[in-house]
């Protein structure tokens, strides 16, 4: 049985659960791969190979555990949680990941705007991510790249809502400062 291209995530998941339909799962992967991989690239500080390995691991874990998905949250929230946990496990192999860490005050920086978002600006942004703490990077990746609300991000990252908001504010202040610094002659 073929699935229409516009099938919702829920319809695809039901097809997988009822018929072990790998084509339906392939459609889910095709739909979510870009955001999951981009979020993981930001989390891994631009390590493309590691990010893709983690993304593949994420989808395999999703396939194995799909019966545990309860349709209470968006599938993307659930998927991002798996991706985040995969990144956290990998990072823990190398060093401790501290999402709750409060590493001090907001960095000083002018309130200026950032240049047009062309390719160069996006590359600068990617590099600027390196100055963020793990928690800040995770919060930005969740809220912007995985398109989660602050509440969903808190749920996915397993940290309090207030911490997510603080991380996002701090991260944006740091990024803005770094990007504006680059613009100066």
């Amino acid at each position, binding site marked *: 049985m073929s699935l229409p291209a516009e099938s919702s995530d829920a319809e695809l998941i039901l097809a997988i659960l009822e018929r072990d339909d790998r084509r339906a799962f392939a459609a889910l992967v095709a739909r979510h791969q870009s955001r999951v991989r*981009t979020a993981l690239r930001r989390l891994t500080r631009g390590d493309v190979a590691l990010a893709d390995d983690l993304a593949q691991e994420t989808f*395999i874990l999703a396939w194995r555990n799909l019966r545990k998905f309860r349709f209470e949250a968006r599938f993307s929230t659930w998927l991002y949680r798996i991706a985040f946990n995969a990144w956290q496990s990998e990072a823990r192999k190398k060093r401790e990941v501290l999402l709750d860490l409060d590493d001090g005050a907001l960095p000083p920086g002018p309130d200026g705007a*950032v*240049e047009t978002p062309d390719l160069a*600006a*996006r590359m600068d*942004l990617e590099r600027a991510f390196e100055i963020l703490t793990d928690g800040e990077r995770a919060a930005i990746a969740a809220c912007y790249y995985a398109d989660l609300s602050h509440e969903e991000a808190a749920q996915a990252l397993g940290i309090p809502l207030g911490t997510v908001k603080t991380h996002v504010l701090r991260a944006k202040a740091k990024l803005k400062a770094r990007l504006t610094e680059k613009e100066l002659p």
Partner: protein
Amino acid sequence: MNDLESLLREDARAGLADDGFCARAVAALPARNPLPGAWLRPALIIGSAAIGSVAALLLAPAGASLVQGFSDLATLRALTPAAVTALGVGGALLASALVLVLDSD
């Protein structure tokens, strides 16, 4: 001029080309364990068919045999006791086979 908010949103929206990722991810999927209790449904269907067949044989008039029944059916004598027995057994097995085929689709 765009602010950081726009830059982040544009970067997130830019999207990554698949580059074979989807095919690799699907090819790496392991076989999934069958649903717990997935064996129950075919077992119930086959069990019911077997019980129905045995009941048809036991309740058939004395002397009726399946071989005789199918022989009667082959010669278009469908109303003999043996033919009715054969029809009952064959029908039960055919129905269970159909249910299993439709169920596995």
